[in-house]
């Protein structure tokens, strides 16, 4: 729908069917004026996207897990060069032990790669975010990852309102590159930059990322105007008004979070939830504004920094540093373990009752019997 001109991808579960379907669309001509490059690795996939984007083509790829890590060097180059590549990340755990199922370790490992990261709550939002991603990328000259939970969303059949092609064409205009490699007017991009200017290049990246916060919000606003549906953006609050305890999530747990909040509200617990759609750039003001009224915040994420703890939790705590809000950090749903409403509910009830101490990472769904059987106490 977004009319990429070059798709270069290497298959990996749970992304495979996405790129297979795209290669079919190219083969049949349904996706016209697009070249599908069969490459030998993810590193080659991103490198091909970099080349394509640098000569002015709209470039797309998709990956996950070890594949994403294998392309890591090129991922940094894409952002360093300011190339508006869009990549679907079908979020999957990273080995060892090898595991093909969902968590966010892959995208979080590339948190600092200079890409915009958007997380989809459901299949409809995954669809909508791809439209928005191309607009955001090309408006900011920054690459965008659209993160969708592997299997949970990538393999789910749900109702999706697919926009008409004409609507998409109006929303995602043809790519007009801000810089272009042209043999008739040769320039070098990505040349070596020494200590005299490297800092300044990085400073400009940071500036551009700061600007992107506004762009992400603005494109989501335009999307709502064009399609009549609220999707994407920076953050999305649910029943935050007068909420004492707020659950912060990202990705497909968002739906369960709203269900749990409704249940707890019926029980008289003033709960709310905040879904982070945009994780990079970090929407500091939006997070702060959404959570300023809360007394307790619990961040539940599907990845953590081994040796430190919560990744998203650190950012949330930082945004609220001078406010009287307690931030509890939790991890769950690693390597495909489902995050059930019952688990989420127990977590939020515990936080609401001040039973979970701060300053340590809480594991949502630890199997104590399994640990005991392995001799761990």
């Amino acid at each position, binding site marked *: 729908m977004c009319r990429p001109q070059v798709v270069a991808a290497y298959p990996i579960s749970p992304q495979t069917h996405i790129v297979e379907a795209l290669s079919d669309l190219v083969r049949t001509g349904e996706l016209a004026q697009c070249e599908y490059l069969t490459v030998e690795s993810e590193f080659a996939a991103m490198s091909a996207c970099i080349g394509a984007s640098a000569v002015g083509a709209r470039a797309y790829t998709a990956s996950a897990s070890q594949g994403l890590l294998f392309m890591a060097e090129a991922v940094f180059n894409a952002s360093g060069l300011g190339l508006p590549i869009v990549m679907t990340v079908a979020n999957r755990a990273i080995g060892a032990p090898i595991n093909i199922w969902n968590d966010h370790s892959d995208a979080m490992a590339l948190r600092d790669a200079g890409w915009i990261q958007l997380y989809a709550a*459901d299949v409809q939002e995954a669809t909508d975010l791809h439209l928005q991603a191309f607009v955001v990328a090309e408006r900011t000259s920054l690459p965008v990852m659209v993160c969708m939970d592997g299997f949970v969303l990538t393999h789910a*059949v749900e109702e999706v309102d697919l926009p008409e092609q004409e609507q998409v064409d109006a929303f995602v205009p043809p790519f007009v590159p801000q810089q272009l490699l042209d043999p008739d007017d040769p320039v070098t991009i990505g040349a070596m930059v020494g200590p005299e200017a490297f800092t300044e290049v990085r400073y400009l990246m940071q500036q551009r990322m700061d600007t992107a916060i506004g762009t992400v919000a603005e494109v989501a606003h335009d999307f709502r105007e064009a399609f009549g549906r609220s999707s994407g953006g920076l953050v999305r609050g649910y029943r935050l008004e007068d909420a004492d305890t707020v659950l912060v999530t990202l990705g497909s747990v968002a*739906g369960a979070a709203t269900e749990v909040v409704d249940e707890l509200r019926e029980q008289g617990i003033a709960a709310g939830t905040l879904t982070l759609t945009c994780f990079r750039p970090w929407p500091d003001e939006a997070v702060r504004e959404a959570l300023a009224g809360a007394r307790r915040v619990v961040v539940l994420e599907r990845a953590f920094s081994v040796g430190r703890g919560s990744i998203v939790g650190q950012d949330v705590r930082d945004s609220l540093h001078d406010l009287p809000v307690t931030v509890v950090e939790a991890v769950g749903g690693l390597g495909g373990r489902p995050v059930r409403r019952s688990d989420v509910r127990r977590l939020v009830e515990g936080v609401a009752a001040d039973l979970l101490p701060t300053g340590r990472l809480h594991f949502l769904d630890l199997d104590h019997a399994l640990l005991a059987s392995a001799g761990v106490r």
Partner: protein
Amino acid sequence: MFNVRFHGRGGQGVVTAAEMLSVAAFDCGLHAQAFPTFGSERTGAPVTSYCRVDDRPIRFHEPIEEPQAIVVQDPTLLHAVPVLAGVQPSSYVLLNTSRELSLAGVPDGDRVAPDRLVTLAATDLAREVLGRPVPNTALLGALAALTGVVPLEAVLVAIRQRFAGPVAEANVELAVRAHASVAHDSMGTVRAMGPARAGGTVGGRA
């Protein structure tokens, strides 16, 4: 909300079955969600898929642990994976088998209400109608008759959306015949076909 869990092996159309049921429900104006749990993807490996049907939007994503209906596409799974986990007294269990079998010794088998267990020789019927041992559309037809979660017509729409030409029509015939074989009485409640019926219940096979 009506929750259906499908168990089978890679190659039996387990994932497709749940997807087609969700399309059928959607066609009826209901909300639906289907998704699989894969192991490593390979033919013959146990596969589980899920379908939720509701008259309001489905917001959450989690496996179905207390299904209202369980479809077992391959009877060899009964002792291999916990296919009956979470079965309720009111849960339907639709079992594809052409042999006499008992749930004795099957985990949670004693929790299945005898009048909710229905067997169907879906693979035999598929072989006869399609020429291929893929039982999923037969089981969907039977499931529609058994539970009323969606009407047969919606299943046929979903089949025609999924397949084309002669393949679609053969699967339609398969679903229609399987549907007809699952008998209802005049009150619309399911008449038990027995947990240990020899020779299957459809297809005129002895």
